[in-house]
C-alpha cells in the first residue's frame, strides 16, 4: 500500500528523502525502491475477489440505465455532509460506477480506480492505454472501458483478477459504452457504432455514418430503449439504429453538433444540440414532437422522469419541461455553466454547476432546498448509491456525502 501511495502521489522527492535518510544502506534501499517502482508502474491492478451482491440502486452505466435517464433508484435527503474525499490525481470526466460498496471510476490520465465507498480508500487501480473520457460500463464481474487515444481502445477487464479478458482496436472513443443483454455497444469518435459480443469482443454488426472520409465524429454516447440505439454526431445527425440488426431505423438532422447523450423516456428521445436547441423525437419514428430553444449552449445530457425533462445549460440555468409537450415548467439559475446532467432522486433534483455548488431542487417546483459548495467546479453528474452521494469536482476529486441526520 505504501508503495502504491508513493507511486500514485508522484512524490519522487519523498522517495529520494527516504533514500537519503537511509544513508548507511543507501544502495540497497535504492535497489529495493527501484524494483518496487518498476513493479508498481507496470503491475497496478484491481482485484475484487469477494462476490458482489447486486442492489436495485447500483449505478452501473452512464446515466444510471441504458436509457440514460439519470434517475436514481434511491435518494438522499439534504442537508448532506462530506464523509471522505478521494484524490484520483487526474481529471475525471465520466461518472463513478457503484456496486456493493465498490466504486469504479476512470480518469483522464488513463487509469481505472477502485474505491471503497465506506472509507474512501483505494482498493486498486489499473492502467489503461490513454484517457478514459467516457464512463465505463459494469456488467457482472466485468468492466468495459473505452479510451480516447491509442490502438487497443476498448477492453473488457475482469474485476475478480484484474486481467483483461479481451481488447479491441476500434480507434479513439470518447463516449460511454452500453451493455444490453449479451451485447456491448460503443460509438467511436470516427463515427462507427459497433455491436460486439460482450463475452469475447467479436463484432456482431457495425453501423457506419457514411464513408470514412465524410463521416462526422461522435461524442454523444449511445442510449437505448431496448429496441434502437440512439446517438448524435458532430454533424448534427441523430441516429436510431436497430439494436439487433444494426439497420438504421431513422435519422433526424439537427442544425448543429450534438455533444450530449440522448435520454430515452416514455417513448421519447430527448437530446440537446450545441446551439442550445433541445429536441424531443419519437423514439420509434424519429418524428419531431417538440423542440425547445434555451438560447445558449447545451453540453450536457438531460435527466428525465416519465413526465418531466430537466436540462442544464451553459448559461447556468436548469429548466424543467413537460416531456409530453416541451412546455417550460420552471427554471432555476446557478451562477455558472451547467455542463453535467442533473440527477433525479425521488422528489429531489440534484444539479452540479461549475460555480462549485451542488443544488438540491424540488422536482415539482424548482424550489431550492439546499446547496453545498464544493471545493472545486462540478462538471460530472452526482451519483447516489444507497444513502450516499458521490460528488465529483475539480476535476480529480470524489467526495462521499451523507445526510446529516445519520
Amino acid at each position, binding site marked *: 500500500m505504501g508503495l502504491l501511495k508513493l507511486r500514485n502521489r508522484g512524490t519522487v522527492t519523498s522517495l529520494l528523502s527516504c533514500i537519503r535518510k537511509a544513508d548507511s544502506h543507501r544502495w540497497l534501499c535504492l535497489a529495493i525502491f527501484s524494483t518496487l517502482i518498476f513493479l508498481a508502474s507496470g503491475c497496478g491492478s484491481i482485484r475484487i475477489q469477494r462476490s458482489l451482491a447486486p442492489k436495485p440502486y447500483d449505478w452501473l452505466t452512464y446515466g444510471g440505465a441504458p436509457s440514460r435517464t439519470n434517475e436514481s433508484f434511491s435518494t438522499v435527503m439534504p442537508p448532506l455532509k462530506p464523509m471522505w474525499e478521494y484524490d484520483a490525481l487526474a481529471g475525471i470526466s465520466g461518472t463513478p460506477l457503484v456496486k456493493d460498496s465498490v466504486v469504479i471510476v476512470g480518469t483522464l490520465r488513463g487509469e481505472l480506480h477502485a474505491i471503497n465507498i465506506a472509507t474512501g480508500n483505494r482498493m486498486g487501480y489499473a492502467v489503461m492505454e490513454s484517457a478514459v473520457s467516457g464512463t465505463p460500463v459494469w456488467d457482472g464481474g466485468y468492466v468495459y472501458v473505452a479510451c480516447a487515444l491509442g490502438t487497443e481502445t476498448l477492453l473488457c477487464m475482469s474485476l475478480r483478477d484484474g486481467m483483461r479478458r479481451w481488447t479491441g482496436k476500434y480507434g479513439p472513443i470518447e463516449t460511454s459504452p452500453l451493455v444490453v443483454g449479451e451485447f456491448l455497444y460503443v460509438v467511436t469518435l470516427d463515427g462507427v457504432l459497433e455491436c460486439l459480443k460482450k463475452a469475447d469482443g467479436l463484432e456482431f454488426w457495425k453501423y457506419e455514418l457514411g464513408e470514412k472520409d465524410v463521416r462526422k465524429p461522435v461524442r454523444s454516447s449511445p442510449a437505448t430503449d431496448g429496441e434502437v440505439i440512439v446517438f448524435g454526431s458532430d454533424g448534427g445527425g441523430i441516429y436510431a439504429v436497430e439494436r439487433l440488426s444494426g439497420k438504421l431505423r431513422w435519422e433526424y438532422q439537427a442544425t448543429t453538433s450534438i455533444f450530449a447523450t440522448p435520454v430515452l423516456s416514455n417513448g421519447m428521445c430527448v437530446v440537446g444540440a*450545441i446551439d442550445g436547441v433541445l429536441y424531443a423525437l419519437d423514439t420509434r419514428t424519429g418524428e419531431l414532437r417538440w423542440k425547445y430553444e434555451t438560447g445558449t449552449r447545451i453540453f450536457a445530457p438531460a435527466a428525465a422522469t416519465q413526465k418531466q425533462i430537466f436540462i442544464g445549460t*451553459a448559461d447556468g440555468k436548469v429548466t424543467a419541461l413537460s416531456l409530453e409537450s416541451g412546455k417550460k415548467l420552471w427554471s432555476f439559475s446557478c451562477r*455558472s455553466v451547467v455542463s453535467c446532467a442533473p440527477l433525479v432522486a425521488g422528489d429531489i433534483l440534484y444539479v452540479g454547476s461549475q460555480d462549485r455548488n451542488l443544488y438540491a431542487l424540488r422536482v415539482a417546483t424548482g424550489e431550492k432546498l439546499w446547496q453545498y459548495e464544493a471545493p472545486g*467546479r462540478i462538471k460530472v453528474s452526482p451519483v447516489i448509491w444507497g444513502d450516499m452521494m458521490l460528488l465529483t469536482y*475539480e476535476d480529480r476529486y470524489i467526495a462521499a456525502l451523507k445526510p446529516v441526520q445519520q
Partner: protein
Amino acid sequence: MIRSFLKYLLFLILLAQTASAQFYYFGRNKVQYTNFDWKVLRTEHFEIYYYTEMKELAERGAQFAEESYRSHEQQFNHNISRRIPLVFYSSHLHFEQTNITPDFIPEGVGGFFEFMKGRVVIPYDGSMKRFEHVIRHELVHVFMHSKINRVLLDHRQSQDRTPPLWFTEGLAEFWSTAWDTQAEMVMRDAVLSNYVVPLNDMDRIYGSFLMYKEGQNLLAFIAERYGPEKILLLMENFWKAASFNEVMKMTIGKTYKEFDEEWIYHLKKQYYPIMAREDLPSGVTKNVVDVGFNMKPLFYNRDGKRELYFIGNQTGYTSIYRVDLDKEKPTPEVLVEGERTNEFEAFHLFQNKLDISKNGVLAFVTKSGETDVLHLFDLKTEKMQETLRFTNLVVLGSPSWSPDGNRIALSAVDKSGMSDLCLFDMTSRTLSRLTNDIYEDRDPAWAPDGSTIIFSSDRTPYGKEGYLNLFSYNVATAEIEYITIGRANFLSPSWSPDGKFLTFTSDIDGAHNVWALDMSQPKLARPMLKVTHLTTAAQDPSWTDRDEMVFTAFENFSFQIKKIRGVSSLLSSASEKREFRFDVNKDPWEAPRLESSSIEADYRYAGDYKLDIAQSQVSTDPVFGTSGGAAVAMSDVLGNDQYYFLIYNTAQARSEFLESFNIAISRISLGKRANYDYGIFHFAGYRYDLTDPDVYYYERAFGGYFVLSYPLSQFRRFETGVTVSSSDKDIFVDPVPRKALLVSSSCSYVADNSLWGPTGPLDGSRTRLTLAYTTDVQHSNVSYYSIIADYRNYWRLSTRSSLASRVNLWYNDGKEARRFFMGGSWDLRGWPRWEIRGQKIWFMSHELRFPFIDQIGIRFPFGGVSFSSIRGALFTDVGGAWDSEYTDTKGSIGAGIRFNLGGIVVLRYDIGKRIENNMAKFQDGLFYQFFFGWDF
C-alpha cells in the same frame, strides 16, 4: 562557488532589469509622470483597479467585463476560479506608465494579459466600443490560458506549452469582435497583393497585426466550414498531441498544409471578384513618397511653392516631412524630427492630422512628457512659435484652424477618459469645451465660412456597434446636427477650398473610400458621391489648390500617400451615390454601467503582494564543490513595489556553514517619478578576482546600498547611489588579511535616444557619464575615485545602414583601485577576452553596419528553416590599458556578420587582423571570433 554565485547574480540582475528599465547601463526611461490614486472595485468576477478621476469609466468597464465573462464562460465551457485583476487606465498615455510590464508599450498595443499573475491591463482610448472589444479580447486570453491549463492538468500533462500565437490571438479577436472593415482591409490586401501567409508558415509574421487578422479569419472559416464547436474542441483536444498541427488533424481532420489549400482557395474565391469593380491603389494612383509608412497628408501653398506636409516614419523615427508636390520623385525633407527628444516624444502616427492656418502656422500634436501638447510651427520662419499644454487634458488630437486663424478646434481626452471637442482661442488664450459626454468625438474640420465645425462621433443609435457618423457643430449656437447617418463609419472630414464639397472616408461599401457631399445642396437633397474605388482603404483625404486630392492608401501592408487629379469631374460623373434617411430614430445609445448592487466592495488600493517567481537550485562544481540556494521575487499587483530575496550557501563542511552564508534582500520602488532601489547583503565565500585571475581569496562582505534614479525625460536620467560595505578579504598569497569598511558613492548622467535594428542601434546616440569615489572609512586601506565616460553615436547612412562610433574612458585612480578589463568580441575585437587589464582603460571603435543577407531558407523533406536579417559589419577598434604608466596601444580591423536568433540573442562572427606592437604591425594571419551579443 563563484559560478553559482554568478548564476544567481545574473538571475537577480535579469530580474531587476526586467523589472526596471531605469536601472540599465543605458536604456530609455519609463517615466512615472502621474501620481495615480488607485482604488479597487470588487465585482462578482473581477477586482478592477482604477484611479479616482475615472470612476465612471471603471464602472462601465466593469459592466463590459461582467458581460464578457458570462459570454466567455459559455463559449469555453469553463470558468475562472478566482477574481481576475483588471487594471484600467483612462488613456494610452497613462497606460504607457504601467509597471505591470517592464517593457515600453507601443502606441498600437490596446491592452495585454500578463499570465504569471493573471493580470489584465487595458487603457481607454475614447471609444466605448473599442474599450468593450479590448476587454473581451483580453478576457479570451484569460479563459484560454485557464482552459488549456485545466485540460493539461486533467490529463496529468506538463503545463509548459501553449497553443500557437496565431490561434490565441486569432481566437481572442474572433470571440471578441465582429469582422470589421479594418480586418477586411488587411485580408483583401493580403489576398489581392498575394502575400497571404499560410498557416504552415505563420511564424514568418509572428506577433504582427497580419497574424492577428489571419488568425481571426481562419478561425471564422473553421467555424463556418467545420462548425463553431471545433474551436472549443481544438482546446479540449490540446492534450492529444505535442504539435498543434496534429491537434488540428485530430479535430477537423486536416493538417496545416491541407487546411491551407482549402482556406486560401476560399479567400481567393471571396476576394478576387472584388477586382471587377474596385482597383488596387497602385493600379490607379501613384505614390507621392515610397519609403516607410506615410500618413495624414496636408497640402499648403507656401509662397507659390506647392508643398505636401505629412507624418511618416521612413527613418524609423516618426517625424513630420515635407515634399514639393510638383516634383516627379520628390525627396522628403524632415521638418520636425520626432521620437528623439522629450519635446516630440511621439506623433501618434495613426491618429492625429495636421493643419496649417491661413498665416502659415502648422499645428500638430505630440506627446511631450506627461501629456500631449499642441505645437504651433511657423512655416515662414521655420521656427517653433509656441507649445501649448492644457491643464487636465491628457490626450490631444487632430487640430483644425478656424478660417481666420484665431481659434483651433481639437479633440481631447481628459483624465476621466472622456473624448470631447475643445476650442482654443488664440486671442484670449482660453480653452473651452464644446462637448462633454461619453461619446467619442474626433476629427474636427472647420468649415471655410467659419460657422460650423464638422466632426466624427459615435453619438448615434449605431454608436453602440462602434460606428461613427459625421456631425456639424454650430459655433454660434452650439447646436449639433447630423450630417450623415447610417450603420457605417464616416471619418476624416475635409473641405474643398471653395467650401462646396465636404469629403470624408466611409466604409459603407465594405472598404474605406473617399466620398463627398455637395454642401451647397439642401441637407435632404445631397447624396453621398463616391470619389475613390479602392479595394483596400483610402484615408485622410485633403484637397490641393488644383482640383486634386491627396490621401493615404493601404497596399502591400503599407500606408502611402496618393494623389488623384480631376476631382470635380470625378464628382460630377460619380456613378455610386448614397442617400441618407434622416427620419429614423436618432437617439444616441447609452453605455451600460454596473449597477451598484453588483459592486461588492470599493476601496483604496493598499498594495497586494504576490509571488512573481520562486526558484531553488543546487549546483556542483568540480573545484568549488556543492552549493545551494533560492531566489524569490514578489511584487504588488500594480508592479510598483518589487522585492527580491536571494539566499544561498556554499559551505562544504558544517564548520563553514555560517561563514559561507549569502543573502541579499532588495526593494525596488517604481511607483513615483524618482525610482529607488535599496537593500542589504551578506556575501561570503571563495572567489577569483576576474581582474586578477591569479588571485584566489576568501571574502566576506556585508552592508547595504541605495540607488536613486530620476528620469528627466524618456531619454535622459540622473542616477546616484551609495554602498556601505564591510569587506574582509583573505588573499591566500598575502599573509595579512585586508579589512575595510568601504563607502562607495557615485552619480551618473545617462542619455539614450537610440533606434534599434535587428542586431543593435542604427540611429541616435547614447551617453553615460559616471563619477564615483570609494574609500575605506575604518582602516584607510582603500581610497580611489572613478570616472566612466561612454559615448556612442550612430549616423544613419540609409534606411538600413549606419556608421556607429563609440569612445570609452574607464578611469580608476587611488589606493587599491580596481582594475578594468577588455578584449574580446564586445570591445577590442581580435584580442583574447578580458586579457587587457588596467586601472585605466580607453577605447574607441567605429563600425559600418549594413544589411548583408535578407533571408536564407533551407527546405528539408520534413520542413524548412529560414534565417532573416543577416547583417554585415566593417570595424576598426583601438584602445589601451594601464595602471600607472601608459605603454601600449592595441587595435584591430576586420569584418563580420551578425544575426538575431529569435529576438533573444545576436550571434556574431568576425574575421580580422589585430594591430600589434603599439599599432606598428598587423597580425600575421587572421583572427576568427565567434561570440554572442548585441552591437554596441
